[in-house]
């Protein structure tokens, strides 16, 4: 939709620049990660690797319960 009525122009002016749909298509820059943040993210990866088989086991186990 494209509206160019002066009242509409004033209305759109109520939005902050970052609220416009066009502004949201520009991605934010990638964050520079410090050592502490990197350590947390690595720990999270380990946690995820451990958690995935637990979730898979839980689902298979629950399936077997459901069929009993």
């Amino acid at each position, binding site marked *: 939709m494209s509206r160019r009525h002066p009242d*509409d122009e004033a*209305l759109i002016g*109520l939005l902050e620049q970052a609220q*416009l*749909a066009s*502004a*949201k298509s520009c991605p934010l820059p*990638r964050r520079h*990660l410090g050592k502490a943040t990197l350590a947390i993210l690595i720990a999270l990866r380990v946690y995820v690797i451990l958690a995935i088989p637990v979730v898979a086991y839980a689902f298979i186990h629950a399936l077997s319960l*459901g069929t009993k």
Partner: protein
Amino acid sequence: MNHENFTREDYLRAQDRQKVQQSRAAKNWLRLIWLLAGPGVLVMLGENDGPSMVSYATTGATYGVGFFIPFILLTFAMAYVVQEMTVRLGVATHRGHAELIFQRFGPFWGYFAIADLVFGNLLTLVTEFIAIQAGGLYFGIPTWASVLGGVLVVFTSMALRRYATWERVALTLAACNMLFIPAALLAHPNPAAIAHAMATWGPLPGGMGTAFITLILANIGATVTPWMIFFQQSAVVDKGLTRADLAQGRIDTALGAGLAALAAIATVVAAAPLFAAHTDISQFASGADFATALKPLIGSTGAALFALGIIEAGLVAAMTISTSSSYALAEALSAKHSFNLDFASGWLFYGAAIIATLFAAAVVLIPGAPLLAMTLTVNVIATLLMAPALLLLLLLVNDRAIMAGLHNGWRANLAGGAIVIFICLAGALYGIITVFPHLVGV
């Protein structure tokens, strides 16, 4: 500012902002709260979903009025601390949670967060339709009719193609979460017992066994889950909240936490007569079983209110959880994501919610579908994967480059960090108890 190519989304959001600015200029604070409230109340009442209300009912039927009354208040205080961070992230960045993770931490964490959320949400959505059909069965409504009704409510709310209208429809339905309050009053609770529980965190019949630990963790899991983080931040952005609205955003979240805690406590109180009557609830499979068992104890009106509350809990959660998936998926794929979009522009956003809803509804209708397995797995996924979601939230809310002055202070980090550690430990313990019950002798 170049206004040459603004969109329907911009135009509708600007209309909402105009109302907010007019109310602020007129110092009409009540109207301002009315206009700006929504995401916080919806996320909190949305989390009072079908499985959560069954957890609260189980708590009341197992322990009566005692320790869990103040404990539920504590869990909602924790939920407020977590969700308030999403409000700050939303007003500071005007970006959804999924897109912030993608853009600031890269595709690995982006795709992980989305996979975690969408998988967990799909299974949770199935449990919401289980709640809707279970509540319907109490009134003699066939499963297909309840499920069809639920699907129609979700689709109709999306067809409005306007965030503000969708939100008001959802809020109206969510208000029915308060049906548990008259149901509790019909149980004729002893006010002195409730006051005693609040003051002493007791009594705790049976002590701290494994059943107690499981219920503690189930109650935590019923209050803080990953979809809430994604939903509220995206809803705050879609609603168009700015820094000037932060105070109202916090009031909205606190109001939601208060109302949801009230409904949760009312559910415990309403189910407490089952504890007094020593009712065996071990074979109860849904909220409808609680309503049926409560009928001779709190009357047919109270039981009907309870069953209606279960249906409402499933309906509102179906709306909010499918929306949370839509926002996150569209953000991850850099597609447009707003309830202010028309169908052509927002085909991915609307399509994701439609497909998720149809999938969940269809699963419930499949004869012999492993519904119990899904319900059990949902709890494990939600609790185990809460840790990464909370840690990513804390990292984002401490990202000074994007928070521009709204980053966490040391007090907020201390409170947030303590909650993260508590929820992570509780989640891991819940996962272990659920997956390896023999290790802890459940």
